[in-house]
């Protein structure tokens, strides 16, 4: 009788764990690129972005059981990845600058490539110059076809706030890119 109960209890716990693991695996496959791009939007360094996204997933896995509303996983992951990336950027700002310089000084092959690279550098400098609350909105809106509603869900902000911040960000970017 007791053995049956414990067997059922243990079996139930195992099945709950298995279910959680399966759910997390599905979320991982679905959101890994998003987390990487969020980190890349801040760091612009592939390896660093992968490291940060990995750390965010490890933390997410650690606390996945406590997450009440699993539908908020993407928003939770995006905010955590953004925060981790900002922290990493502050810690390795000098190294990131060196990477950018070395990438920029790679000898260009054709005039088109030269122009494209220069434009890309200019764009990233402009994005970097934005205040953080405008930068996160513009980066999230520019990836994976997120609309204002999705960005507002990811950042837990009202849609009107996202819209106004996106407008301001575009205005500043246009000004900086002229």
């Amino acid at each position, binding site marked *: 009788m007791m053995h049956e109960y414990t067997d059922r209890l243990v079996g139930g716990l195992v099945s709950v764990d298995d279910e959680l693991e399966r759910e997390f695996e599905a979320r*991982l*496959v679905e959101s*890994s*690129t998003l987390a*990487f*791009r969020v980190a*890349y*939007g801040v760091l612009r360094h*592939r390896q660093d*972005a*992968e490291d940060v*996204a*990995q*750390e965010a*997933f*490890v933390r997410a*896995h*650690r606390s996945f059981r406590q997450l009440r509303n699993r539908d908020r996983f993407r928003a939770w992951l995006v905010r955590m990845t953004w925060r981790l990336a900002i922290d990493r950027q502050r810690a390795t700002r000098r190294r990131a600058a060196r990477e950018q310089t070395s990438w920029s000084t790679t000898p260009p092959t054709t005039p088109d490539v030269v122009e494209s690279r220069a*434009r*890309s550098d200019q*764009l*990233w400098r402009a*994005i970097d110059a934005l205040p953080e609350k405008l930068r996160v909105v*513009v*980066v999230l*809106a*520019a*990836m*994976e*076809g*997120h*609309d*204002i*509603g999705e960005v507002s869900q990811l950042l837990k902000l009202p849609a009107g706030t996202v*819209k106004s911040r*996106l*407008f301001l960000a*575009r205005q500043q*970017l*246009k000004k900086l*890119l002229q």
Partner: protein
Amino acid sequence: MTPHPSREPSADTALDDELERALAVEPSPEFVARIRTGIAQEAMSSRWSLPRLVAVAGLALVPVVALVLLRPAPRPSTQPIDAVASSSGPAVAPPVRLVEPTPEPAQPAVVRERPSTPRARAAAAPRSTAAPPEVLIAADEAEALQRLLAGIRDGRVDPASIPPDPFAVAAAEPVQLAIAPITVAPLVIEEGEHP
């Protein structure tokens, strides 16, 4: 995720396209595998977290504590004291055989158990019979006594002439004290005084 499901009409398409291209980076093919490895490593390391280590240490301490708590208390020995004395190294006092297989029925055998406390052990320790106990007398008193004994032996001193112990006599006969009677004069109230 469908691309641009509800893009704002006022958005600058060129700028949006540019931003999208800038952010259209793909992680390395082994990225997801790396995340899985990281999660597995973290799960492995968390198995040996602090609470778990404390629990393991506690489990390791259980036998030690049990051993200390369940150790039997020292029981009083039923061995005769001579056997104990003979088995405990150099003896200070000569061994005294207290358990005597005596044939006399009137004298029962004395069996002394070994006392557990040091104080009781000292009280029950056998007294040595080899040397007479030392009598502590002041040197001048001992000399006077020896001279008195020598005088009696030689006939110079008559024992009958020795007075009894003056202290004993004094203690037996209380001294009569002469106490003058106390007379109390009656009070006389003079004029001008209040009683």
